[in-house]
């Protein structure tokens, strides 16, 4: 098949046929539709809501497309003749236009000749409701499910009737379940005990907060004792499940915070842990990675989704080269003098900060989140997992695996391990230790750059980005045990989870303090961290 006709196109064809049959009626509908549509241009927000209501009552086949476009900021009018158009994509230039009446393409035109018809919160709320009624018959399952959820929020008689109608023809089980929940909520308002008990039974399988609120209200002021008891037990079941899911959520939050900690610390674990260099510019190497992401997005503005994949190796190279430069120019003269190294790298960090301030200005730069990284994956009504965190956990695991692979399976890794275990012996065996030092430092710096790409998706890309993460990264390395990458992984993850377990009770400020205090106490008991390096080499340091 050459191409699959989309649902929208089928609808248009059908409508066109139907329209030809009832040409007269249609042209009348068109006129009233167009006159209402034209009123949208100048109306206030509350008037727009009224017009939207009237538009949906005309029953015109384009209503849904027009209202959806208005909701999604895609409704424009041409400045020269005030004619209204739907744009396929909002804010593109040129705009890809669609005629609102025939829903046929109307070519494209430069964006500055058009004015967008704006919406505000109140209007968007009304529009969502109205559009939901139309979406109930959408061929897309997720659209239907969202429509039912939207309609559940305001169950008036026509809505309930519409839901019942849909329930009879719905084939998808998950949508069916949502509709059943919605209808059960409506049934609760009845007077007969039996259907109400049945409704409570249906609702007890839901974990939605709205259902819970409805049942809790029922428990508070229900006269019928049978219904009340049923509601109490249903409420208990729902709460049990909700607690369970909220625990899973907390665990996920902890893992995601932990993976960020691991990501920012792992580069340091190599430079500080393996080489013994206290690199205060580690945060700025991450910052360089974030700015690289910004620069890559600026170079390829049309491909934001793909830009991340270009940024990761680019950031590795940029920060890695900077790391090698630092090692060759400064750090190699300071081996064995930790205090001087600390001060020198601190100086480098200030220079790098001022450098980006001069190049990119002191203002934060806007790194766009690609669409596939925003939003969340809905597990059920009580649990949703945000995509950006999920990707960052995955990214951390991949980066960690790659580092392990490089250290254990490549020549460079062998050299690094040899030099870190016994420099003199390695040298005697013919390893160019100086070259290995530069490469190791560059490798650690490159990993920091990759962490910067991830951070650009979580926080501000600005000159101060590095400073806010440097302390955390040192904490993780010290906690995990200097010189042990697995220690950093376990250490970072457990710190993340510990922090997130405390946060709901202690608040963000106190949670962080508790973690610090716990760390200090821990270091008192085990000064070498979770997984100290064993053997004589470690004692020498």
């Amino acid at each position, binding site marked *: 098949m050459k191409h699959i006709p989309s649902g929208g196109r089928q609808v248009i064809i059908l409508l066109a046929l139907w329209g030809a049959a009832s040409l007269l009626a249609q042209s009348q509908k068109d006129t009233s539709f167009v006159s209402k549509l034209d009123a949208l241009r100048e109306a206030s*927000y509350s008037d727009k809501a009224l017009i939207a209501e009237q538009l949906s009552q005309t029953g015109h086949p384009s209503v849904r497309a027009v209202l959806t476009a208005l909701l999604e*900021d895609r409704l424009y009018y041409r400045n020269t003749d005030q004619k209204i158009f739907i744009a396929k994509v*909002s*804010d593109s230039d040129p705009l890809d236009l669609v005629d609102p009446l025939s829903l046929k393409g109307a070519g494209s035109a430069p964006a500055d000749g058009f004015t967008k018809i*704006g919406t*505000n*919160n*109140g209007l*968007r*709320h009304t529009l*969502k409701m109205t559009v939901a009624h139309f979406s109930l018959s959408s061929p897309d399952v997720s659209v239907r499910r969202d429509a039912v959820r939207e309609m559940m929020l305001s169950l008036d008689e026509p809505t309930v009737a519409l839901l019942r109608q849909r329930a009879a023809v719905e084939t998808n089980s998950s949508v069916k379940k949502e509709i059943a929940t919605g209808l059960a909520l409506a049934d609760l308002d009845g007077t007969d005990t039996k259907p109400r008990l049945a409704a409570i039974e249906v609702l007890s399988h839901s974990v939605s*907060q*709205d259902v819970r*609120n409805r049942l809790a*209200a029922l428990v508070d002021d229900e006269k019928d004792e049978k219904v009340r008891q049923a509601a109490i037990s249903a409420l208990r079941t729902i709460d049990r499940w909700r607690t369970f899911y*909220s625990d899973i*959520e*907390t665990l996920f*939050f902890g893992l*995601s*915070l932990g993976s*960020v900690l691991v990501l920012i610390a792992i580069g340091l674990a190599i430079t500080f842990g393996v080489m013994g260099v206290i690199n205060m510019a580690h945060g700025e190497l991450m910052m360089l990675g974030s700015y690289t992401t910004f620069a890559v997005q600026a170079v390829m503005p049309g491909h934001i989704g793909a830009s991340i994949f270009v940024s990761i190796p680019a950031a590795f190279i940029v920060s890695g080269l900077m790391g090698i430069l630092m090692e060759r120019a400064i750090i190699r003269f300071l081996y064995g003098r930790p205090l001087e190294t600390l001060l020198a790298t601190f100086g480098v960090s200030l220079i790098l900060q*001022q450098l980006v*301030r001069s190049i990119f200005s*002191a*203002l*934060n*730069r*806007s*790194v*766009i*989140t690609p669409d596939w990284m*925003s*939003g*969340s994956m809905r597990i059920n009504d009580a649990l*949703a997992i*945000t*995509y*950006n*965190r999920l990707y960052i956990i995955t990214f951390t695991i991949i980066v960690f695996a790659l580092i392990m692979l490089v250290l254990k399976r490549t020549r460079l890794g062998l050299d690094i391990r040899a030099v870190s275990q016994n420099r003199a012996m390695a040298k005697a065996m013919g390893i160019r230790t100086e070259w290995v030092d530069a490469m190791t430092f560059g490798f650690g710096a490159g990993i920091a750059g990759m962490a910067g790409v991830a951070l650009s998706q*979580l*926080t*501000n*890309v*600005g*000159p*101060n980005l590095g400073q*806010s993460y440097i302390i955390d990264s040192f904490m993780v390395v010290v906690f995990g045990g200097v010189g042990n990458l697995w220690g950093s992984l376990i250490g970072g993850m457990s710190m993340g989870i510990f922090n*997130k377990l405390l*946060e*709901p009770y202690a*608040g*963000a*400020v106190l949670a*962080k303090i508790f973690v610090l205090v716990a760390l200090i106490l821990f270091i008192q008991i085990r000064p070498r961290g979770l997984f100290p390096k064993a053997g004589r080499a470690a004692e020498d340091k």
Partner: protein
Amino acid sequence: MKRKSLLMTASALIAGSIFSGLAAAQDVIKVGVLHSLSGTMAISETTLKDTVLMMIDEQNKKGGLLGKKLVPVVVDPASNWPLFAEKAAQLLEKDKVSVVFGCWTSVSRKSVLPVFEKDNGLLFYPVQYEGEESSKNVIYTGAAPNQQAIPAVDYLMKEVGVKRWILEGTDYVYPRTTNKILEAYLKAKGVKPEDISVNYTPFGFSDWQTRVAAIKKFGSAGKKTAVVSTVNGDANVPFYKELGNQKISAEDIPVVAFSVGEEELSGVDTKPLVGELAAWNYFESIKTPANKAFIDQWHAFIKNPKRTTNDPMEATYIGFNLWVKAVEKAKTTDTEKVIATLPGLQTPNLTGGIAKVLPNHHITKPVFIGEVKADGQFNVVWKSSGVVPGDAWSDFLPGSKNIEADWVTLKCGNYNTVTKVCSGQNFK
């Protein structure tokens, strides 16, 4: 040899600066600019430094002030609070400036306050703040809580029908005091304590997952809920991103912010913010001839047509114009006389209203509520009828209910109307 030549150069330099100082003192007026140009606050404060320079530039084109040329003295306190006091002392004692425009954070203002009071300087402070202060030596051209926070809460309560409140702030003095005032105000309006949740996060907080989940939970109790955000600076972007990712839209739980303006939005991917609210006394999108002229002038001065304008810039503009008027009226730059002239002076603001200096050293300002649009600008959804006079001491806090500030008749910034005692900032 080397040391000798160094010494000679140094003495020549000193002599030179003394001479030039003497020559300059006769025909110029020095204007101090005390804004951080490096460190964390540089992002916001650099813009204000440029605004002052632009205003000075324009005044000089008009022929200066009292026939003298205005000369800016720019120092960089580097977002370092003790350094603010040091630099303020340098401006007042060494450079002998006639006026200082500066400070952003409340802690920097508190840090320079003793210096200004000791040296009897004059500071124009252009940022919205928590109130509970009135100094003889400071003119507050930003909003007091009753010119920003309280009207915003009123809007949500009356127009949006909000019944449940989350006061979310960064952990420092401005959010803590503002939230204290708001909490007292909400309770006075009959909001039950269990419908108010107050929470603080550290500076630069970036892991908002737990907080946003808690907001979601608090907001799904069946009553309309809103977040009043005094979250400051860099922490905002991850906050809004997380709200977007956890699918909390402005239609469900609106967030009204007091620290998010056009400048902050220019470095942000605005997609997840559309529809969120901000309360300010100025928006770049407000269409008046004065505002258009100001924006054009700014673009020409900064040589970048994409730079935005914002509320503290307008406050700086108002402060500068007020100072110029006061100097012209007093016919001197002597701070004592200028300070005495300021109360009662009026100057048009950029949104079609009049900014008038009140006896408590605050000014009258209109209040606007705007919704964030996709292009990073605001769509004004509500405005106060007329201007609101700034109230230094909040009427909703038990500690400051009876306190008045009046530098015209009472000559006191902290006068208790019950005990009739002037404490604190008191200069006889």
